Every structure is written in C-alpha cells, then in structure tokens.
C-alpha cells in the first residue's frame, strides 16, 4: 500500500451561521488521483481553500507528508509542494504565458534554488508539455478559456508540486477538450508522479480518471470509495435525485457501466 501524502482530520469551516464544511476527514495516498464531487454548495471549493491555506479551518487539522500544516500561510504551503488551480481561472493577465509559468517555477518548492534564467527555461519546457509551446510570448489575457486553463495547470506544474489541487479544470470545456485535458492529467500523474486531487462537476470525466472519489453534500462527507462503488451508493443517488439533471447524468452513467 502506497503511503499517505495528505490527511484531513475533522475539518470544519463556518461562514457566519452557515457550516460550509462539517467534520470532514479523508486521506489521500501518494500518486493517486482523488476525486471530490457533490452538488453546488457542497463545500468542495471551501475544502480546497483550506488545503491550500486561503482559509484557516475553524476546527480540525491538515497533515501533509506527516507534518501539521494547519497554521501555515498559503505561500508556505506552496513551497512545500502544494499547487492548485482555481475554479475561476486567475492567470496574471498582463504577463506573458512564459512569465506566468516562470512565476510558478521561481516561487514553488524550488524557491531560492533556481535563477530567473533557469525558471524561464523550465517555463519553456512546461509550456510545450501542456501544449502552449507556440503561445509563450502572448500576454495571458489574449488566451481563450481552454488555453487559460492549460496555463493555470502549467503554472502549477512548473513548481514541480508533489500534490496538485485541481478546481474544476474541466468545467466549460467541450467534450473533445475534456478528453485532451484528461490525457494531459494522466500524463502528469504517470510521468511526473504527482498526486492529484480534483474537484469536479463533470461527473462522467471524474468517474473515468479518479481511483477514489469522495462525495460531499451540504458540507458533510456522505461517501468515499472507488468510482463503481460510488455510482451504486444509495445515499449518493438520493442526493443527486434532488437535482434532476444531475440524477439523469448519474442514471446514464450507471446504465453505461453495468
């Protein structure tokens, strides 16, 4: 059994009277692709924000590579090898694609160990790895949505992270683009050995790629396990039945699987 890289223990986050994440515990193993799904407002992005340090949990602990990182600032976590992308893409619009990626390389776990020139060199390689090799001199603002998502991924990868948090990288992409992005993610895990946690709305995609899936509903964890198990879990189906369109997707998925 592979070792664990990240563990959340009884995480709670409240916003005023709303409990966005309620006593959620989980474990992510080194080198796996771990999916998190759930209806809108389930607390998925809040959970990510706690892992990357944007929010401090009200209760509970986060253990990364055996170390308690609950009280570290976001930039300190980034230097330990945690990288993320955002649901609403946040490239640096005025900087070029190359500069965007170089920032990732300079300030990640290699902070202080590489020069600006080396960072630009790494940025060039990563850009072609994600398929942006011919756009490196363009300002990020000039890219389309799909390219911006790739840029965010490249920026995260340039840091050489050990844990990569992907917040809805597939949302808004066409089916063809989703396939190519999934191929890229598999490549990232297989070639670079990066552990991936992904929050997704696109159910079918995450079912295909993730080894294990955790389901959140109103801030609570209601199920966890391999995709087949999740697809047949009565609690999960009940939750998604509350949302007819999602339920339909689920039924289709089950029909396809059996």
């Amino acid at each position: 059994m592979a070792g664990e890289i990240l563990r959340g223990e009884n995480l709670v986050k409240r916003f005023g009277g709303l409990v966005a994440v309620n006593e959620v515990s989980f474990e992510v193993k080194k080198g796996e692709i771990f999916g998190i799904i759930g209806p809108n407002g389930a607390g998925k992005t809040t959970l990510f924000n706690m892992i990357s340090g944007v929010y401090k949990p009200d209760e509970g602990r986060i253990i990364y590579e055996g170390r308690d990182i609950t009280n570290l600032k976001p930039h300190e976590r980034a230097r330990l090898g945690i990288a993320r992308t955002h649901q609403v893409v946040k490239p640096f619009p005025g900087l070029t694609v190359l500069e965007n990626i170089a920032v990732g390389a300079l300030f990640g776990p290699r902070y202080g160990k590489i020069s600006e020139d080396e960072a630009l060199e790494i940025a060039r390689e990563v850009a072609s790895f994600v398929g942006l090799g011919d756009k490196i001199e363009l300002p990020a603002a000039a890219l389309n949505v799909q390219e911006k998502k790739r840029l965010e991924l490249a920026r995260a990868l340039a840091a050489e992270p050990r844990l990569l948090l992907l917040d809805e990288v597939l949302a808004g992409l066409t089916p063809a683009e989703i396939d190519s992005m999934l191929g890229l993610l598999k490549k990232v895990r297989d070639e670079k050995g990066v552990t991936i946690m992904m929050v997704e709305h696109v159910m079918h995609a995450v079912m295909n790629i993730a080894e294990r899936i955790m389901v959140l509903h109103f801030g609570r964890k209601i199920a966890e396990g391999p995709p087949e198990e999740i697809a047949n879990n009565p609690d999960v189906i009940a939750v998604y039945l509350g949302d007819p369109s999602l339920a339909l997707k689920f039924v289709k998925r089950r029909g396809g699987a059996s």
Partner: protein
Amino acid sequence: MRMLKRPGFIASIVLILIYLVIGIAGQEGHLLSIIGNAMDTMMYIGWALALAVIMSYAGYVSFGHAVFVGIGAWMTAVTIESIMPSHPFTISMFIVALLLGAGVAALVAYAVGWVVLRLRGAYFAIATIGLDYVVLYLAIYTLSRAGISPPLLFRNLSLTVQSFYWMHFTVFVITLLVVYYIKASRFGFGLAAIREDEEAAEVMGVDTFKYKLMAFTLSALIAGMWGVPLAFRHAKFDPQDVFSLLNSVIMIVENTVGGLGTFLGPIVGAYIYYGLYWSLLTKIAQASFVVLGPLIVIIIALVPEGLVGWLREKFPRLRKALE
C-alpha cells in the same frame, strides 16, 4: 548574467554615460544652462522610478509618496544645522545626509507599511495621503517649537552648481541600478505577480506581505535619497513645498503616462512630463495643469496601459526591447 544584456540595463548605462558627459562638459562653465535642465530631468526620473517600485511594479498606488522626499530634505536640514552645525561642506556631510534621509524614510515606510499594506486600492492611497499630512504638520510643529517659522534656510555652504550636479548624479546612478535590479530579479517577478493578482500570487508561493513591505520600504528609501540633493540645491527646508501633494502627483503622472509594469515606462514618462512642463510653462507654473490634467484623463480613458505599454501591445516585436 543575462540580466546585464537586457535592454533595460543597457538603457540605464547609456543614460548614466550621457549624464556623466554632460557633467564633465558642464565643468567648463559655458554649458551651465544645460546643467540645470539635466539636474531636473535626473530628479524627475529618480522620483518616477522611486514610486514605480511600489506603484508600477507592485500595483499599490501611493498618493503621498512626497512624504519620503520630504523626510530626505528634513534629514538634510538636521544634518547641516544640528549634526554638523559648524563644519564647512565636505563629501562626508552629503553622505551623512544621504544615509540619514534614506534610512529614516525607509524606517518610516517599514513601520507604517505594517499597517497600510493590509489595505488595498483607494484605502491604501488615502492612507498614504494621511501619512504625508501627519509628517508635514509634525515638521511644521517641530520647526515652530524651535522658534523657526518655515521655511528653514540653511547656513551658507558655498556650494557650486557643479557640486549640486554630482550630488544628483550620484543618487541617479544608485536609483537606476537598484530599481533595475529590483525589476529584473526574482523580487521583480514576485511583485509583478502581486500586481496582477495578489491572491493567486500568494497561493503560488509568493510571500506577498513581505514582498509588499520590502517594495514599499525600498521605494521610500529611494524617494528619501532624492530629498537630499533637492534640499542642498535649494539651500532650505520648506515643509509646505517638499511635502506638497503636487510632488506625489508628478510621480504618479510620470508612471501613468509612461506605462505601468515596465522599467522604461517611468523614465519615458519623466521626459514627457518635463518636456510638457517646460513647453507649457507660463507666467505661473500651476496653469500648466490645465493641460496636464486633461492629458491624464485622456490617457486613462484611451490608453490605460501608458505609452510604453501601448507600444508593447501594438508592436509585439518590440516587447522584448521595451522592457
């Protein structure tokens, strides 16, 4: 190092050489008129680059940046009148004033930065204006307690125009090299990330608060240095004059006109400002704002990225050259 082969560095060296030649030629005496203009342009470039570190690179518009120039001038007064009260002018007097002016300005920025750099946008701008006024009225109060009604006129140091020139030149060289290094280094990358999206920068590993604090402190240090040759040249410390918001205005205009986020932008902006200022100079200097004001409004509406930024966008091939 690649950094030394880049256009920004080459431009800095060329500028330094040009002003060196003007300074040497000016020793002859018949070029004195040029010397005055050269000093002015060095100062305006220096002011622009000082503010650029926090405004143009990090994206925090400090509206009270004159406060640091004022502190530099104040510390010069302290050096001449209190620390070395009966000395004739020596290089060491200039150096003491420079260290004190830059040091106190940096210290104030560091202390105040802990508070004001937690604010964003307009709140930060307003806070810096507040700082400017606090120090201005503190200076007036201090002078009045000493029985002086401003301005404080310095004792006669028998300085020549040439010595003023070399003071400006010294600070000019330091400014260009330090600011270029800031822009081209990892620190500059981090500041650019903060300017573009502070939250994303933090998540990517940029220690945003420390970087902002360093940028604000360095920016103040450079502005503080510029208060020193200014005070020597005018042989007085006039709080209402050096702390004037109009000085902050000039720095902001230079950066806006030239273009944010570039090294050359503020320099180009400084020349444009100085050119306009002189060509518009009527009987009363303030009247030139009738032209400068609309210019800012038009630039913000039509070319918010400034002249250098606009050129970079229009001619992508120039991007590398217009660093």
